[in-house]
């Protein structure tokens, strides 16, 4: 009994050390990042008309012209334009990047994206929830905990079959390293290995990103054209 108690105390102590070490590591990473914390909110906001135009630039006009458009306000995303084709276009901000991404608080980041119907139902709620938590003043760690808890309580869904989105905007700014990157499509699937789609292998046109916090794998297919029909230099891939 006594031995068991000692084992329990030792285990708890060990867990505490691990937790503190992780928190310290996270803080150290943040301190190294050019964006260690959230900038004043104004730096993330945009003129509404400009945000609508940028959101729509994520997909060809034949898709985004009939989509809902949501814009970022001081408390979260609001619907600015009601559409009719089931797609929703928004401009994501930096906190939808991975928690270990150095651009997590980068106020310059703008990710125009148009979601299809299954993604609207199963991925957009995640973006909306993260945004509300951040704008309510939660830290990166608190936001992660809240998202984790929301998944545990099934308040957030896992990706539906066929969930995908367009990210073909020339106006986007996805990171300091990659700028606007390449026009691409993204497919959201419940956590799976990259090899299931043949992604990340030499010569494969498919890239994968596993996100354990968001409980999904994103498959990306770079495209040869931007949403306005202009060419993306092919040798850039």
């Amino acid at each position, binding site marked *: 009994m006594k031995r068991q108690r000692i084992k329990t105390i030792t285990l708890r102590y060990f867990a505490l050390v691990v937790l503190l070490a992780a928190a310290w590591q996270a803080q150290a990473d943040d301190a190294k990042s050019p964006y260690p914390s959230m900038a004043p909110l104004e730096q993330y906001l945009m003129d509404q008309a400009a945000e609508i135009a940028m959101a729509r630039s994520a997909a060809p*006009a034949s898709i985004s012209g009939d989509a809902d458009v949501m814009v970022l306000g001081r408390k979260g995303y609001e619907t600015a334009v009601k559409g009719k084709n089931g797609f929703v276009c928004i401009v994501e901000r930096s906190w939808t990047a991975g928690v270990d991404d150095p651009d997590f608080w980068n106020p310059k980041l703008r990710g125009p994206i148009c979601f299809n119907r299954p993604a609207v139902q199963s991925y957009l709620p995640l973006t909306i929830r993260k945004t509300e938590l951040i704008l309510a003043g939660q830290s990166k760690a608190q936001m992660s905990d809240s998202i984790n808890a929301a998944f545990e309580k099934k308040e957030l869904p896992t990706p539906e*079959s066929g969930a995908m989105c367009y990210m073909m905007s020339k106006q986007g700014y996805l990171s300091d390293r990659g700028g606007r990157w390449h026009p691409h499509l993204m497919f959201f699937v419940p956590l799976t290995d990259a090899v299931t789609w043949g992604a990340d292998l030499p*010569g494969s046109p498919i890239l994968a990103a596993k996100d354990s916090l968001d409980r999904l794998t994103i498959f990306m297919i770079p*495209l040869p054209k931007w949403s306005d029909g202009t060419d993306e230099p092919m040798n850039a891939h």
Partner: protein
Amino acid sequence: MKGKTATGTAKGRTVRAIALRSFALVVLLAAAWRAQAEDAKSPYPGMAPIEQYLMDRDAEIDLARSAAPASISSDADVMVLGRKGYQTAVKGKNGFVCVVERSWMAPFDDPEFLNPDQRLPLCLNPPAARSHLPLTLKMTDLALAGLSKTQMFESIKAAFEKKELPLPEPGEVCYMMSKRQYFGRKYGNADPLMFWVPKTDDMFWGGGLPGSPVYVHQYSPEPITEFIVSVSKWSDGTAAPTD
């Protein structure tokens, strides 16, 4: 009164049933005649001699593998066409299956249907191998058994209705990036990835709209929608046309 009415109704029903059956027969005959007439118009109204669809085994393995980058296809199963259907020629280890489809996998209304020159190398990921490959094998069996296009159509329709053929699974991907693919005279080559989903509308992925990088094909009679995304390189890494 009640009985007389009942008798009258029964007689009326018989006449109506005969009329309906006659009408259905006329519609059926007209459809069959139309199908035959269309088949006659097609440059490939019937199956060519089987030899014209067959290939040298090594060449077929090589062509099948060219559907995807070597990092995928070299570890895949490879199936080749024989006189009685497809057989596994190479056992792989990554769950992908590469195969060269023939023209009986083209849409039924495609003028290239049964074109003996058509060669479409595909590499299917594991979910696609489970649910698309059975359709390829079934269609091949029907074609090699000498069924007409109409008979094949009806047989595939019935197989889906009886759930003998599976619907697409979530997460299906098919690589079709071979520079050596040959669709036929009507079409050029393409370098696509294909995704199959249970029948849905084109807007599900924004397919087929001006400027959209997603093309769409609605199968018939299969309850399947095919979304197609072109990429900018062939499987060998060389640049592909972007239009």
